């Protein structure tokens, strides 16, 4: 009988390791649990309590604790991030809390993969392909949104003044990675 399958990240080993860089560092983030939560604000409020992170009702804002985060992506849509081994616990807690109330909880741990770009010129690297104003006055820490990077759709979340979390569909991840490396070389 075959061995237990192992997770193989969409970015692959070649892209997951990058040395330090003065302008902007790039790294693949570890595998995580991810859910798309869909529902109305009352359900979101209950879900936030069960998840342990209140869901932001303000648009384009993320709330987070040490190891969990809830990102507002739309008026009825939040992206939930938690450690890889917390998937069952998160699912169970939300199902228990919400009972028969209307909502949708979809596991998307493998659909998306995440990487992080950090450094003094991270915004300039991102702006090679992202048309948003990333000045801290317009895109403060804690802000998150769906946007584009070149020809790929991404979720961009500023976790610190010089640190961005990028969530992207797995097949677009190599493109996003290579695009950022190329952009960084051309500053």
């Amino acid at each position, binding site marked *: *009988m*075959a*061995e*237990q*399958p*192992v*997770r*193989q*990240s*969409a970015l692959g080993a070649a892209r997951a390791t990058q040395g330090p860089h003065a302008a902007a560092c790039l790294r693949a983030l570890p*595998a995580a649990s991810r859910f*798309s939560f*869909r*529902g109305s604000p009352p359900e979101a409020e209950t879900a936030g309590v069960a998840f342990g992170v209140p869901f932001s009702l303000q648009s384009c804002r993320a709330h987070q604790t040490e190891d969990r985060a809830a990102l507002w992506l739309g008026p*009825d849509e939040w992206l939930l991030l938690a450690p890889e081994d917390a998937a069952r616990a998160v699912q169970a807690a939300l199902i228990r809390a919400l009972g028969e109330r*209307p*909502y*949708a*909880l*979809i*596991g*998307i*741990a*493998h*659909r*998306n993969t995440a990487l992080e770009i950090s450094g003094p010129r991270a915004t*300039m690297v991102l*702006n*090679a*392909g*992202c*048309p*948003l*104003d990333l*000045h801290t006055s*317009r895109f403060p820490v804690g802000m998150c949104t769906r946007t584009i990077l*070149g*020809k*790929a759709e991404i979720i961009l979340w500023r976790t610190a003044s010089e640190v961005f979390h990028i969530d992207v*569909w*797995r*097949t*677009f991840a*190599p*493109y996003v990675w*290579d*695009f950022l490396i*190329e*952009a960084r*070389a*051309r500053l």
Partner: protein
Amino acid sequence: MTGPFRTEIGGRIDRTRRIDFRFDGRLYSGHPGDNLASALLSHGVHLLGRSFKYHRPRGVLGAGSEEPNALVRVGSYESRATPNLRATQVEIHDLLVAESQNRYPSLSFDVGAINDVLSPLFPAGFYYKTFMWPAWGWRRLYEPIIRRMAGLGRAPTAPDADIYAQRYVHCDVLVVGAGPAGLAAARAAAQGGARVLLCDEQSEFGGSLLSEPDTTEAGRNRLAWRAATLATLAASDNVTLLTRSTAFGVFADNFVALVERVTDHLANPEPALPRERLWQVRARQVVLATGAIERPMVFAGNDRPGVMLAGAARTYLHRYGVRTGRRIVLATSADSAYGVAMDLHRAGLTIAAIADVRNEASGPLAAAARAAGLPLRTSTHIAATHGRLRIRGATLARNGTGAREKVACDLLLMSGGYTPTVHLYSQARGTLRFDESLGAFLPGGDTGILQVAGACRGIFATDVAIADGAEAGTVAAARTDPGGAPQPVRTISVPDSGALLAREAPCDRRAFVDFQNDVTTKDLRLAVREGFVSVEHVKRYTTAGMATDQGKTSNINALALVANERRMDMAAVGLTTFRMPYTPVTFGTLAGAARGNLFDPIRQTPIHAWAEDRGAVFEDVGMWKRARYFPAARETMAQAVARECRAVRTGAGLFDASTLGKIEVVGPDAAIFLERMYVNNFRKLAVGRARYGLMLGEDGFVLDDGVIGRLAPDRFHVTTTTGGAPRVLAMMEDYLQTEWPDLRVWLTSTTEEWAVVSIQGPRARDIIAPFVIGIDLAPQAFPHMAVAEGTILGVNLRIFRVSFTGECGFEINVPADYGSDVWHAIMQQGTVFGLTPYGTEAMHVLRAEKGYIIVGQESDGTATPDDLGLGWAIGRGKSDFVGKRSLARAAMRDPSRKQLVGLLTSNGETVLQEGAQIVTAANGNASIGHVTSAYFSTTLGRSMALAMISGGKARMGEKLLAPMLDRTHEVTVAPAMFYDPKGERLYG
């Protein structure tokens, strides 16, 4: 050696360093700060090119981006060569290699110059009137010859070796142009607290400040003011300064495109640096301080080398320390020429004559020239010029009297007044008004988000332009901070300029209006005489203003001629449309990083690496790479596909179906929603069962299909076609949000969440059964169209019993990161059963044997379910679904509609071409349908085809004809189901 025409002191060149460069193979020298034109002029070289149509010798006309004549090719390698660059904008460096264009064998002796002698034969639109016979002549003879004779530079043949980059930028205030007005605007805006971006197309900031004498009318030291202003800007951290950056396009809502030339001026640039960078700027406020361009005078022979714009000569003198000649004739209709004359006079050049077409020359500048004893003649125009490769003299004539005088000169300067550079303003949809005193179109006003300052709105005096720019900058900054103090306003108005727009010009085939496209006054008159009324038509017929310079020096002169000819006001004649780009932009800049691997995202399934190792041949399906077939050693595609098909029919095949679109539809109203979106009945679908779903557009035509499984009462796993996934999700969201916002259901794309391993064939069950935990796969327990959740090898599993081959099959969905390992494990297990990986080509053949359609191949957006033989899928008694109403229209039930049938060729070896038209023997001219799919089937031992044929269902057994390139083939209509029509294998 410093060029003999270099001044002893002055200019912004670094005389301590020498730069050697090549032009047309000859070595020349210049200094840092020079451009190609100024460096060549310092050696007395004026002849820089040959004209487009008549191959006339041409020299440098201007000193900036408006230059129409001095176009050169730069770059010694084909992969880095750029044609059609303006010598006035090419900065020299030690490895610069440039050459002139459109000449053979050499610039000074060009055989193409025969065209100049023959020019009476080539008036405007000559190619519409001549070269008509013989009929084949145009394409094979005349056009190739004309294309070779006429033209500019030659496009490089090698792939571009350079790198290009792009960047989005946001700012509060974008200031375009860093002359006096632009610098003042940027400083004022920055002081107002705004995030400022200042760009200028030149190598250093300053604009006209660099070209004019030391002090302004008000006694301000130009360069000192420039230095102080720049120092303030450089010290502000809210200011970004961009030299060598041209704003070439203005789009909606102050979206402005700039191209920054990063390395062209460097001999040895850092290899990682891009050659050019596209800046895509979103500015809350824009201030255009784009300056003005001098107008040439129109007279016979106004294009000889040595005929130049007056302001350009002044720029070469003050900025580059170059005397453009020794003995000068000035032709003017504007006061500004007198300022230039005085400058050149002071620099020791001889002013041989000043010919002013106006009846009187008043104003302080003219008075100063008179006082200095310069030979000024009013009511005088240039009747002719003399010389061949360089001007030797000009004939001056008194207006109206015919009195003539020949004056020797080596430089003829023209000044027809200045035209404000309103290109960008006009692109921003600003309205223009004609100003009589300036003889130019001026910006009508401020658009609320975009203002104009300085010469660009007719304010030419440096001190006033500075004040005007500062006001614009202050207003712009205040507008970005609406909470601030009362909004400041602009107070400066546009003064008269003291220029006359010369509307009368001789009708002469040597009096050039558009230098780059060789359009003369004679051409324009001809166009008007032939009845062209609109300036847009005149422009297209004569090509005036259509060259790469877009008529920067010619448009107003051309309009004035048309207005004069038609006895109309300039305002009534109007202006042709300004389009981006302001100056030509390389394709590389527009492409940016989108080349090679970054051209598009390349979407690969989790099983891609395995398939690659296995030697798969891939095909592109949208952005996806899909394995088309897996050739074994020395196998052809046909052999590989035949082997793969045989394996599925006799043992088992493994197929990577991960690219299938997947949507998870969840919520209490999920079944109702799907029932409305698809033609099928879903409310009665039991949990654990799946159904083929057919989606129509509002028009009743098939849009997509897939299998939909019910995992729970409120949870469905919907699959779509590979290419249709985004479209289907978008359409579902559209209906949900706009038509049925009351439904409590949510849609999530899960295409990439699941890797899908499809195992098909009589041994499929035997291979996977040992792996699957928690699900009984026996035929009774898990029949065709069943779905269940369990685990496989310890990971989550969603398994569908479905088939796109006609064999018993399973689609194994596992979380994508595990896809590769699960595929490996199944392959390993299946070896003893002859498990064979197969690709999309075998998949196509297998499904065609069963008559299963592919949306977009059998259907073309005009097929109803019934046309495709899928009428059975429509749920009986459903009150509504998208497209239902359209299906009820009479035309949708017309029995002569194209319907899906099978076709069998008389010769079983013949494979029809997909797309081949089908005709009847009775009428061989009218197509009654076309082939949608055609393959050779190993299973059948013969070819087969699917086709959409008019009234096809009623034609079973009928013989039809398929005309193809080689010959016409006879075909017999058959049911669109060639294999196992009863489906015994499917349900086994």
